[in-house]
């Protein structure tokens, strides 16, 4: 087991560097971030070339890569070209917002989704099962941005009960905590519905198929044949074993905590990580975009590792082979 983990971690190191390499060169193809400044007749060109030099853009791309990499490894993510703030500060501000939305919706959809999936599988082709099968087909095919717009039309345009986007009513910053909470609730309902719906249907599908597979196993038949009480069979043999793939998927979806809501944030104008990274890419804000991408990629690698370890821990056949 220890060897297995050690090997997995060692593989991650070259993978990480390759990811930085690929993303850096992709970003360098994106265009010259100083093109506008250079073309502007109102800006002193000496100043522009000074700026270019201070960002290291006078050097060829591969040297820039190593310069950037060494800065990253020292924890220096640079300065935003648009706002002039430190990238790390921008991330620190956006992160709690994204986390608060995602942890909330993720926990909800995971718990409810696994429960529904379990019941659906045990009562295959019953009303509940058919109902949620239809719902999960709908959830899979529904473009989240369209659902968001339709909800906005329903709740904001027609019914006038929810704000169409944003994160806080202006002037609420110093309100008492309960009022602030209720205010926040109004903004979070629609993103919650959209994200929760998508997540929920996914968990229902995975759990259902995993439990159905377990129900067909020989050891379940054996357990029943030797007269074990049904709830013991279901709990010990079916449910617990069916959680293995669910646990793997859980770890694999961890990066979603930080990025899963990118499109939704953009639509509801929530100032989280998704808005930060998409905005940075749109505005050629090099440093911010690169830092966020590296951040996500590392998270993804890390969760792949956790998923593999969890899988090995839960399944002795992998651990001992």
């Amino acid at each position, binding site marked *: 087991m220890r060897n297995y983990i050690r090997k997995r971690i060692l593989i991650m190191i070259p993978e990480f560097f390759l990811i930085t390499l690929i993303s850096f060169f992709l970003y360098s193809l994106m265009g010259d971030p100083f093109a506008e400044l250079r073309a502007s007749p109102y800006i002193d060109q000496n100043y522009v070339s000074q700026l270019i030099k201070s960002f290291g853009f006078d050097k060829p791309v591969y040297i820039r890569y190593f310069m950037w990499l060494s800065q990253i490894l020292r924890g220096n993510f640079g300065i935003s070209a648009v706002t002039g703030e430190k990238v790390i500060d921008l991330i620190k501000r956006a992160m709690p917002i994204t986390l608060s939305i995602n942890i909330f919706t993720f926990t909800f959809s995971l718990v409810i989704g696994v429960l529904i999936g379990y019941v659906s599988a045990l009562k295959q082709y019953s009303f509940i099962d058919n109902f949620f099968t239809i719902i999960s087909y709908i959830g899979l095919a529904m473009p989240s941005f369209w659902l968001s717009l339709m909800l906005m039309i329903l709740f*904001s345009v027609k019914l006038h009960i929810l704000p169409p986007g944003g994160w806080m009513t202006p002037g609420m910053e110093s309100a008492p905590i309960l009022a602030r909470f209720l205010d926040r609730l109004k903004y979070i309902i629609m993103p919650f519905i959209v994200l929760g719906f998508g997540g929920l249907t996914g968990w229902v599908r995975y759990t259902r198929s995993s439990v159905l597979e377990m129900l067909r196993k020989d050891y379940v038949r054996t357990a029943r044949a030797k007269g074990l009480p049904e709830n013991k069979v279901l709990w010990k043999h079916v449910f617990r074993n069916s959680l293995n793939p669910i646990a793997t998927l859980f770890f694999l979806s961890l990066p979603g905590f930080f990025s899963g809501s990118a*499109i939704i944030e953009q639509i509801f104008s929530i100032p989280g990580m998704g808005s930060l990274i*998409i905005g940075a890419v749109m505005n050629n804000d090099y440093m911010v975009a690169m830092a966020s991408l590296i951040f996500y990629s590392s998270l993804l690698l890390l969760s792949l590792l956790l998923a593999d370890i969890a899988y090995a821990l839960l399944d002795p056949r992998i651990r001992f082979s």
Partner: protein
Amino acid sequence: MEEQIVVEKVSERSTTYWSEVRRRLLKNKLATVSLILLILMYAIVIVGPLLYRVDPNYINLQEVLQPPSKIHPLGTDENGRDELARLLYGGRVSLLISLSVTLLSGLIGVFIGILAAYKKGWVDIALMRLNEIMMAIPEFPILVVAAKIKIVPSSIMKLIIILVVFGWLGIARLTRGEALSVSEEQFVEAAKAIGASNMRIIIRHILPNTFHIFIVWATLRLGGVILSEAALSFFGLGVQPPTASWGNMLMNAQTYIWTAQWLVLWPGLMIFVTVLLFNFLGDGLRNAMDPKFFK
């Protein structure tokens, strides 16, 4: 000595794998209906503009944001362009992109998957590591970045290239897995024993036996690409105006949710229904092709 000829009559027509799959698929009502509706959908976007002769890019500032009426069955958009015409032409673009991306990335993925499985050794390791690394790059941000790079002048071509470059990962893994298990089969061993060339084994044995994986993947992917196209176009990074696609029609529409809700409804509904039908068909195909369910 007299020879006796025994004639054995074959009472039933022999069934092949694919005829059996067809029979099983047609027994699945949901999948059959989806298939028919999808064919209908393609027919409508191909033939529709020939019958409904309205220029989708004709700007008429006298008829801006009109609700559905007799002249404009689905209303008009912010430039007074006819929504129905744009929906038909947009459908052509969206379906064309999904078809070409799926076929191209599928071809590349199947090729790489089989290559990795058949060559084994360092070829396999290198290809699968590349695959893993590309999977570890978060999809949407990298698509957004890629969409900003100026490769080719046509935004449709560019979208196709981007989605193909990041689209072969899944099918390559699936094909590799299946090809690995097929190449262990005895008929492959037998083919090797009688001296068949690698090329022949791959084309005659491995490819046909991994093909069902590709079919199911492609059907589901046809819907998935429509969603990706729409998401990128929705953020202004996909198909560029004035060319309509279902995605960029939605992008324009989001500004007008207060005044012209019909602009939001139709393109989104088309995306939703098309993806839904592809998923129904894909799942039907998966069940029809799975030998586990053969009786």
